[in-house]
């Protein structure tokens, strides 16, 4: 870094505001779509693992192994099939969410009190209805706790996609390094952190709206 260069040049940020907004949008898409896909895979998988417990250990092992593979390696594998596209970034990120989301779906379903499960059966809910209308709604707080972790980590991981030219705000980090110019780097890091915080706050809000019943606990006799 050359001497006398400030950490942040505000005029650069003002000049690039439009471009920064575009990249922020891309970053959000690259970070959050994998969480949505992860949820679409994890919910049914979690239900199956809850229903047949023997399925859970192998599924969890596979999810954890996937999580342990470095993203660079996964990019190199998928780039052969999906090229230098956003998909090549999103597929590994989706796989990474599974190691958080599957256990949370399973734990969420296990958090349903036994009397509630029994009552559902006794009232005449069939097995599928019981899962959809009773057990999953009760699992929501635990599932959302997992979604928060997955979303935050996914948003921060997107930048690595810059290795194949699809890193959202990660672009500014490599740019800044190449030009020996700190402003884009700092700006990108701050924006990524803000995105993660905002997403987390929205998820907390979503949980409050989705589960009004989990608040207002009274400990009446």
């Amino acid at each position, binding site marked *: 870094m050359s001497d006398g260069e400030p950490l942040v040049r505000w005029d650069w940020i003002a000049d690039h505001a439009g471009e920064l907004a575009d990249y922020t949008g891309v970053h959000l898409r690259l970070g959050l779509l994998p969480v949505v896909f992860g949820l679409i895979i994890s919910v049914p998988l979690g239900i199956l693992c809850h229903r047949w417990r023997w399925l859970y250990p192998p599924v969890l092992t596979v999810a954890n192994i996937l999580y342990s593979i470095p993203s660079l390696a996964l990019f190199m594998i998928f780039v052969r099939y999906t090229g230098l596209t956003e998909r090549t970034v999103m597929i590994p990120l989706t796989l990474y969410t599974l190691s958080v989301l599957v256990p949370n779906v399973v734990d969420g379903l296990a958090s349903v*009190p036994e009397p509630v499960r*029994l*009552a559902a059966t*006794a009232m*005449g*809910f*069939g097995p599928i209805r019981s899962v959809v209308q009773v057990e999953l709604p009760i699992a929501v707080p635990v599932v959302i706790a997992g979604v928060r972790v997955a979303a935050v980590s996914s948003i921060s991981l997107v930048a690595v996609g810059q290795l194949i030219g699809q890193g959202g705000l990660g672009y500014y980090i490599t740019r800044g390094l190449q030009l020996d110019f700190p402003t884009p780097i700092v700006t990108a890091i701050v924006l990524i952190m803000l995105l993660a915080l905002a997403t987390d706050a929205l998820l907390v809000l979503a949980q409050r709206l989705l589960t009004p019943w989990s608040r207002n606990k009274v400990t009446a006799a």
Partner: protein
Amino acid sequence: MIRFDAVSKNYPNGTTAVDELSLELAEGGITVLVGPSGCGKTTTLRMINRMVEPTAGTVSLRGRDIREVHAPELRRGIGYVIQHAGLFPHRTILDNIATVPLLLGWSRKKARARAAELLELVGLPSEMAKRYPNQLSGGQQQRVGVARALGADPPVLLMDEPFSAVDPIVRAELQAEFIRLQKELHKTIVFVTHDIDEAIRLGDNIAVFRTGGKLAQFDTPERLLAHPADDFVAGFVGQDRGIRRLSFVKAAEVPLREGPVLPETSPVARARTVDEPWVLVVDEARRPLGWAAVAGLPDTGTLADAPLAPLGHTFSLVGDSARAALDAALLSPSRLAVGVDAEGAVVGVADAYELSAVMAAAEAVAAEAAAGDAGADAPGGGER
């Protein structure tokens, strides 16, 4: 109505939960299944709505083998109340109660209207409709559990220790409420408890199970107390079954005598002529005021001036049982129980010894009744 035919349930681990049970439960009555922990009460109950499938034998409901009915459908026609209410935490009280109507495809509006009716029926204020279960006390949740079970007005209600998780005061309240409700609804109820007092209080018929899932006796509460089938049943119904039996004798049957009852306007001298240590002082309407110890009377004046010992409690000839009369005698300073009529006027008194005569009379009636149905079917079907 509900019939068990040589029904057994064996679990793969070798446990016999229910052993060759044959039982017929009368329509419109409360049958209580009672017995020590692990004797198969819950298993028996759950075989009625197919939450447990028997290993042998058949269960039929109104003459139809329940295996012919699709299980979830069968269950929507049978109310079920469990120990810890098991309310759905994510649904409001109103929607909890509307569960079965909604499953049956009623419109949301109609189901909620029905639920609001039921909320009132079980004695909960309508403000509770919008609350969630975690905002209710245990006793209130249990009431909601009952309302939910009644959702689609099922003819049959299964209740598994519904009142055992609440404190004794709330339990007594819920039991009284339950008796009132049943008078109105006439459901066929199968009620599980391990509390023999609750069984006697609520049951029209009681099935006593012993460990290993065997039916020990099936009878009315009166006969269970009077004639336990064996030592196990006798032990289970308890040491004080003699006194408990008095609950089934109406106080009106208690022989009363006039005894030492004097109006408060009587001169004290009059009390001394009664050859009793205590006199019962009454007002002009013969309502009891208290007991006066003859030895402690003033020399002159009327009984209105005499120091009175409190009455203890009286018993009513219209509503109470002989058990209340005996209790009144034991707690009275004079050892005499005071019987009053509907207006509260004294009808007469009796001591514990005289009250015990009621027992003998009840015994004779029970023996006669037993002889009477020896040829006919025992109550509710009996053992076969």
